[in-house]
């Protein structure tokens, strides 16, 4: 009896350990592999025995152009996030606070656009951008990315705005603020955590984008990090440079993982309010 009781007490923790192991083991393997020397890259020990940063040095060798790719990613994801947030804040405010015709229809449409297969907008836009000479430009990656980041931002922010008591604005408006002032001085500061959360989620989505960046660029100097890593070349054409790919993968992922660790509560709140309601 006591044995089963003890089991019952510990079982959830065993389960939790299993869940965490499931989620982290492949990532751990990437981390370990990136820290091996290229000579023992195929070693299967659980720890990198002679710890080596050789792969990280290789990633940043000028021939790979990885720092430029990181910068490109930062520009594309950053601008996409900023633009999406700007437009989405206005729209979400209207969705949460104002009563107007076709509101439900508009919100349904906005959400529906986020479900579009990206490839079906990339193909025509690729042709259009080829014609107007936009290939290998930042805008050719930023504009199509808005197709999925903007609906995501609108949806998330609408939920956040709706959670805030409306009385606050009314009080401000009674005190003589216009609706615009009430929005700027009361709502925006109070919604800052929600806006910030949305910014993280949107940024991660934009940072992870691959198909648009792959299709819209053919010059190595304009590729984003995700595309650049997938095209890393080794010393010979038959050799896949797994070591430096893993190192680059870690470098691209670590900022996101740190963000996730620091803001996990906020991110979960944002994701579940947006997706599961």
């Amino acid at each position: 009896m006591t044995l089963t009781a003890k089991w019952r007490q510990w079982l959830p923790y065993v389960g939790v350990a299993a869940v965490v192991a499931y989620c982290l083991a492949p990532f751990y393997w990437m981390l370990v592999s990136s820290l091996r020397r290229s000579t023992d890259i195929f070693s299967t020990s659980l720890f990198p025995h002679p710890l080596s940063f050789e792969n990280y040095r290789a990633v940043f060798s000028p021939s790979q152009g990885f720092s430029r790719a990181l910068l490109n990613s930062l520009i594309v994801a950053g601008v996409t996030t900023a633009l999406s947030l700007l437009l989405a804040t206005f729209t979400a405010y209207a969705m949460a606070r104002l009563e107007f015709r076709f509101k439900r229809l508009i919100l349904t449409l906005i959400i529906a656009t986020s479900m579009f297969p990206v490839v079906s907008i990339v193909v025509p836009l690729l042709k259009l951008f080829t014609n107007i000479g936009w290939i290998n430009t930042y805008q050719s990656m930023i504009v199509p990315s808005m197709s999925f980041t903007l609906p995501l931002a609108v949806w998330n922010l609408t939920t956040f705005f709706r959670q805030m008591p409306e009385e606050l604005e009314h009080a401000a408006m009674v005190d003589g603020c216009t609706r615009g002032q009430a929005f700027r001085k009361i709502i925006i500061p109070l919604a800052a955590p929600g806006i910030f959360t949305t910014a993280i989620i949107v940024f991660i989505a934009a940072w992870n984008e691959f198909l648009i960046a792959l299709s819209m660029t053919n010059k190595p100097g304009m590729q984003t990090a995700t595309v650049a890593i997938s095209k890393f070349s080794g010393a010979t054409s038959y050799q896949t440079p797994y070591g430096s790919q893993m190192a680059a993968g870690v470098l691209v992922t670590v900022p996101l993982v740190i963000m996730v660790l620091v803001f996990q509560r906020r991110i979960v709140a944002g994701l579940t309010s947006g997706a599961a309601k």
Partner: protein
Amino acid sequence: MADTKVPPGTAAPDSGSAPGSRTGRPSSPPKAGRTRARATAGTGRLAALLVSPTLLVLTIVVIYPTIMALNESLYGPKGLDPKTGFISNTEPFVGLRNYTDIFTQAGDRFWNAFWNTTLFTVVTVSLETVIGVAMALIMAKAFRGRALVRAGILVPWAIPTAISGLLWRWIFNADGIANVLIGHQVLWTADGFQAKIAVIIAEVWKTSPFIGLLVLAGLQVIPKEVYEAARIDGAGALARFWRITLPLVKPALLVAVLFRCLDALRMFDLPYILIGAQKGSVETLSMLAQNEASNVRFGPASAYAVLLFLYVFLIALAFVRLLGADLVGEAGDAGGAKRRRAARGRRRALPAPRRAEVTA
């Protein structure tokens, strides 16, 4: 819900400025509804102002390309002009030939991509749902270490799919850890059935924690009393799961599954990087369309993209119509939402609070 109750005497400030520009709402009885009617006209304009930039951008990046794709799919690839012998600069109009080709010459590749897409969607989403629900049940039981679990569970979600493709490519390498663990040499990333398995494993790894997270959010709003009452009535653990947990998390789960399905239908990065471009065993519709477009065959590429779009649309419609997935949720007009919620309340044994907030 978001109705604009303007306190009496402080009619929405911008409504007073243009009293004549009342939009087409039926005018209300003079005394009681006057302030409200004027406020509505004002908010209508304000709303239009606030919403239009988003709608404009979405029109440019979604609706316009979709129409372009429909148009483009009626044209054939540029080629040699039979009359002049030069490469022609214009694309010939071919009508529906890009579509009818699917039943003849381009058929094999299209149907292969179609069935791959369908197989990946069905298998990965089913596995993800089962694993995700199991994870959520485990996490709901744990009291300590929940923050750790939540952070851990978000890691696969945060890793870019392209990177996770590389990560799994390394794991499934001929001398990789996967083969060491199973003690058996399998060429996972070569073209073939095992490549499908590799893609499915990698996809399930990345997304089932996410389903777990959403289901956990749904679980946490179920009141404890419901379970206690069921236990007193003598319901076993399994009965409690089938009769209480599952029906109550169904709305959240349904939306999660719908989103995963639509995501899986447009799968691109993972098979593209894990196995490679133009590998028949894992080529999806997105990969096929992208490949055609990158070879400047815009017409066929658009036709494939349009077909994928229709496929996604039909699945979404089926979810909303047949299963009643509520996408917009509380959003939109109060009347519609209330009506639908009332209808659902009748079907449901117990009304559950709709908003899921994960608490530590």
